[in-house]
């Protein structure tokens, strides 16, 4: 027994002796968020290593598991030197964010504000892509139905057009909206993106910039306008929506069975470029229009343009690694290969040297802004306890849509869950 205990003890001691990681050279380790960009990142990393001799390792977190993966990887001897931190992550990862003030990658930014700053003024992370969402519109189909994009200037117009198309859907061979799928694969389109529009108007009224402790849900009633259109002027209604997936909705639009599809600029690759998807839509047939929810003055609304993808450099990495990482970032946002890759994978990016975008949706956003329309900011990035808040909202929306429960529940979820999550967020 004694012998045994001694052995067990020795073992535990060996275990507790965490071997200290000593590395002989500087290296970069990027924990990538987007699985679809994995191959491009690997290629870029190889190219950089070939050119400079500095090893760059890119590991991609599987979809939906970034936080878990980051926790596990950050605990390892060779932790990521480059990772993603958005507003919601600042609280938990702020200490790990190297102050980027004055670094090349920040100096390369074309516009101010594309960074997240900590309370003490340090720059925690820097945006690397700018994305846009709204109602993706098939202009060709719209024309077939006898309308132009310019006919839709506010919610009333949209309603008229959509209801007309839906009424004639049998004859036209297509419907107004692709399925507003509430399945987990794309319900963030509504709990995150659509509800963000209501948050935006509320924040604008109250001059909110940052995470408020409570929200009033003043415009939740307006969301119902658009949501009712989504779920009535569509081939998919009722219970079928609760399980309709992202791909299903995309396929309906891609195959020309729907005129409108609420989604973002990232869809450009799938709809137009990626031949393996089989849609091969023509860029000139597509555009994106604002999300109209029936708010005063929304004729001047633009698209929802913003980002939640920010790079942060691990402050706890070795000095050499931090430097190597910053050098790598500078190269990514300035070099020919880097900027090409960024433009191809992410569309618009906020850097001076960014390549002009091909992405038709980003262009649509720029055009509206140039026309004097206001940008509908990404207010959802300020959601405390994002997962739970969105879950509550989407559940209330599902109950309303499928079981005919009251829309008031959506407002309750909006307001009460926000307050609760904020309390938890600040308490933790």
């Amino acid at each position, binding site marked *: *027994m004694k012998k045994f205990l001694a052995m067990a003890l020795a073992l535990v001691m060996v275990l507790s002796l965490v071997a200290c990681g000593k590395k002989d050279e500087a290296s970069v380790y990027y924990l990538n968020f987007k699985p679809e960009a994995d191959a491009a990142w690997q290629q870029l990393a190889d190219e950089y290593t070939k050119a400079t001799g500095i090893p760059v390792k890119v590991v991609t977190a599987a979809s939906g598991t970034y936080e878990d993966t980051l926790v596990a990887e950050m605990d390892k001897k060779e932790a990521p030197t480059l990772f993603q931190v958005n507003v919601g992550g600042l609280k938990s990862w702020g200490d790990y964010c190297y102050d980027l003030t004055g670094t090349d990658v920040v100096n390369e930014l074309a516009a101010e504000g594309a960074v997240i700053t900590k309370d003490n003024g340090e720059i925690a992370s820097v945006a690397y892509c700018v994305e846009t969402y709204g109602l993706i519109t098939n202009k060709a189909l719209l024309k077939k139905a006898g309308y132009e994009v310019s006919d839709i200037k506010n919610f009333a117009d949209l309603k008229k057009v959509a209801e007309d198309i839906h009424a004639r859907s049998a004859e036209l061979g297509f419907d107004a909206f692709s399925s507003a799928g509430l399945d987990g694969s794309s319900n963030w389109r509504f709990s995150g993106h659509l509800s963000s529009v209501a948050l935006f108007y509320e924040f604008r009224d109250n001059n909110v910039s940052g995470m408020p402790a409570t929200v009033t849900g003043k415009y939740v009633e307006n969301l119902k306008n658009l949501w009712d259109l989504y779920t009535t002027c569509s081939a998919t209604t009722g219970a079928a929506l609760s399980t309709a997936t992202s791909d299903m909705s995309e396929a309906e639009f891609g195959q020309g069975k729907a005129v409108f599809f609420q989604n973002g600029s990232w869809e450009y690759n799938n709809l137009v470029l990626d031949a393996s998807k089989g849609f091969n839509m023509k860029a000139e047939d597509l555009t994106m229009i604002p999300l109209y929810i029936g708010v005063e003055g929304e004729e001047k609304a633009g698209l929802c343009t913003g980002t939640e993808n920010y790079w942060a450099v691990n402050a706890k990495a070795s000095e050499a690694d931090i430097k190597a990482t910053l050098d790598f970032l500078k190269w990514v946002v300035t070099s020919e290969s880097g900027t090409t890759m960024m433009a191809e994978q992410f569309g618009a990016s906020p850097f001076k040297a960014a390549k002009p975008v091909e992405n038709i949706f980003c262009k649509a956003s720029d055009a509206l802004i140039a026309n004097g329309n206001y940008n509908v900011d990404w207010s959802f990035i300020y959601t405390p306890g994002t997962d739970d808040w969105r879950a509550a909202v989407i559940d209330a929306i599902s109950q309303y849509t499928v079981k005919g429960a009251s829309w008031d529940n959506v407002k309750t979820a909006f307001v009460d869950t926000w307050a609760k999550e904020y309390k938890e967020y600040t308490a933790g």
Partner: protein
Amino acid sequence: MKLKKKDKNKTALTVIFAIIAVVYLLPIFLVLMNSFKSNAAINLNPFAIPDGESFVGWANYIKGMTFGNYPFFKSVLYSVIITVMSVALILICTSMAAWYISRVGSTISKTVYFLCVFSMVVPFQMVMFTLSRTADSLGLNKPWTIPIIYLGFGAGLAVFMFVGFVKSIPLEIEEAAAIDGCGPVRTFFLVVLPMLKPTLISVGVLEIMWVWNDYLLPYLVLDRTEYMTIPIHIQYLKGSFGSVDLGATMALILLSIVPVIVFYLTCQKHIIKGVAAGAVKG
């Protein structure tokens, strides 16, 4: 008369089971069917049999095996290495440990046994972060070292099952071996292990399924730039905007099931043989 009735009953039973079996297989058939359909067709009508329009031949399989820049065959190779090494290690080590535990009724063996039983009620998520850190700091993040983690985390179930069966082996045989001058090592490998064969196979099958299909442990522990396994490979077919390449996913799932089914079918004979042999001796 009685015999006839029995025969009738048996035929009826066979028919009933045949029907249940067909129903039972439907979900797997669904995967097979959809692995030959285009993504759009899977989404819009998952239950439809592939027709001229939705049938895409081997395209999903080709896509599944070639997407990304990590070669699929390497994932298969590492999956095989990890599974074979882990299961072999688990079977040998835990059967020995189980024998020790059942034959030596000391405090140590009881403690170890209870710890093992305890470990079975702990879901992996509970230790995932601490385990991945431990594995990393001990360098157990390679396909040839990760089996130690599997042995450790899987020991509970295996020890538990082996102990249950070792107890049913009559002690006299081992005593006879001991009188004949067999040391414990020879007794174990020449006398006990052969008697454990059916259990070895049952436990082996269960452990193979676990390791082969396991996703989270290798995902957290392995250095994924160099080593991937099939389940990890499949996860990368999911994009960050909720899009899933369903066709390719179905194809890869099917590919990953095939080796296990083949293994199981081969093993089934051994199970029967092993049990039959045991029955003759008993």
